[in-house]
């Protein structure tokens, strides 16, 4: 049985390289786009969820964002599950509506991650952001890329996965981005391009890695009753689940076995669906290896088989199983915690039939998956069209 709250509107700010706009300017743009999409006004919002920023402190984030938007809400919260925040915000907004604390929750986050940082500092800041252990890992000099490279290296050794198979993920997601007029990177790439791109931390290369972007993303969750009167057909929330196993890469011998096993199983159980019922998957793609582990742990292919699963091109547009159809973090945008919110937005657009050239025909169910830390914290959401259970 679906949640009593639904998604009524989605939107994004300008994104990519937006050097002239502050985080609050971007969040205002995204909020207005989501309100316009829903047919709601700013004064209709009585609940708010935002996230911390990485470019500067807000104390506390939900209050400062509310004041910048000029809204006085009866309920507000700040969520930080890193890259899993987008799907977690959806869950927590739905619970706030169901509890009666508020009727219409704005979920919004954004920052100028690309323009606000001097060259190189975004990488250093992320390396020191807490995803590596401050005493036992950071002083050894890992990039965030290195931490995911350890996952990739184990996947290759344990299952025979190749660098070319990982590259196929980047190629497929770039092909989706090429269909999205707003994506930050749209030029098609080949497996050879990925293989020849700059080596960062073996086996991962530049084109195995997500972008860094400016941008903000918003969506609005309201009650099913209220949504009936609004501009767009509501998108249902059929199930959401969380999962986590390790915290740091240095504490597990099973880097490639992730909490997505648990988050996916919990979301599918609530939705009373299985992987075979999903029409399109908007899967978190901070690195190409992330996608391979998620495809396995969410049950779309057997454990260890994702490399061979993807190499026939099935993830590409018009393929047997298109994923991350807006172009994802690898090619559309990655503005930090809000980057994973765009996967929610794309899931909604696919269900509504509004995904333009990237539209997958006949989408009734979409799985949206967020991952944070080093493939450590997972939140999976399953969305459905209005007539789905």
């Amino acid at each position: 049985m679906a949640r009593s709250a639904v998604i009524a509107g989605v939107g994004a700010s300008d994104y990519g390289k937006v050097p002239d706009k502050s985080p609050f300017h971007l969040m205002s743009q995204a909020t207005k786009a989501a309100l316009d999409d829903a047919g709601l006004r700013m004064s209709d919002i009585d609940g708010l969820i935002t996230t911390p920023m990485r470019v500067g402190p807000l104390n506390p984030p939900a209050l400062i964002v509310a004041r910048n938007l000029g809204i006085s809400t009866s309920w507000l919260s700040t969520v930080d599950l890193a890259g899993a925040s987008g799907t977690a915000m959806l869950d927590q907004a739905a619970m706030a509506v169901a509890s009666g604390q508020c009727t219409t929750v704005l979920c919004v986050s954004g920052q100028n991650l690309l323009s606000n940082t001097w060259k190189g500092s975004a990488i250093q800041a992320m390396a020191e952001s807490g995803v590596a252990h401050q005493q036992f890992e950071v002083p050894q000099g890992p990039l965030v890329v290195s931490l995911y490279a350890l996952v990739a290296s184990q996947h290759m050794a344990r299952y025979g996965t190749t660098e070319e198979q990982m590259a196929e993920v980047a190629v497929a997601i770039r092909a989706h981005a090429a269909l999205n007029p707003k994506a930050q990177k749209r030029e098609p790439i080949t497996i050879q391009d990925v293989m020849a791109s700059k080596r960062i931390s073996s086996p991962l290369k530049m084109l195995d890695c997500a972008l860094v972007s400016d941008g903000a993303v918003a969506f609005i969750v309201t009650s099913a009753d209220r949504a009936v009167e609004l501009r767009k057909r509501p998108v249902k929330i059929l199930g959401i689940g969380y999962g986590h196993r390790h915290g740091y890469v240095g504490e597990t011998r099973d880097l490639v076995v992730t909490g997505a096993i648990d988050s996916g199983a919990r979301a599918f159980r609530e939705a009373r669906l299985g992987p075979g019922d999903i029409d399109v998957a908007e899967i978190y793609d901070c690195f190409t290896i992330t996608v391979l582990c998620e495809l396995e742990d969410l049950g779309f292919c057997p454990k260890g088989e994702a490399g061979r699963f993807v190499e026939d091109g099935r993830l590409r547009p018009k393929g047997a199983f298109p994923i991350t159809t807006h172009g994802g973090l690898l090619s559309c945008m990655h503005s930090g915690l809000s980057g994973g919110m765009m996967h929610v937005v794309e899931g909604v657009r696919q269900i509504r039939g509004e995904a333009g050239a990237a539209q997958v025909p006949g989408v009734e169910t979409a799985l949206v998956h967020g991952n944070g830390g080093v493939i450590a914290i997972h939140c999976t959401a399953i969305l459905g069209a209005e007539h789905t259970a």
Partner: protein
Amino acid sequence: MSGQNTSAYDVQPDALTLPFWTAAKDGRFILPQCRACGRFHFYPRAQCPYCASDDLTWIDAKTGGSIVSCTTVSRAPAPAFEADIPYTLAVVETADGPCLFGRIIGSPNPKVGDKVEIGFEAAGNYPRVVFRTGG
């Protein structure tokens, strides 16, 4: 090590981790063990991650291990690491069970599954964990 900026190598021990770093200065590799359930764990915690007991002790650990995964870093995360490029980082499963993060020294081509010897080398204010390969 360049020596010109070692602050990036430094660690700030706390009450839970200081025994590890102090022993490392003497070249000793020790691990926390739970006296209630007998299991080793790492990184150090206030309570056993398996049984939640806070009756913990430190034990001289076996220095053998095998590589769980490794990566060679080609781009420094901060200026202090540029002189070290390229360097290879690894997660190693120790003979006593817990995993450990550190740098590989020795073999130019370490592989997942290779046996290593856990040790320390000078770095910042405390030594860093290194894994010596046979090659």
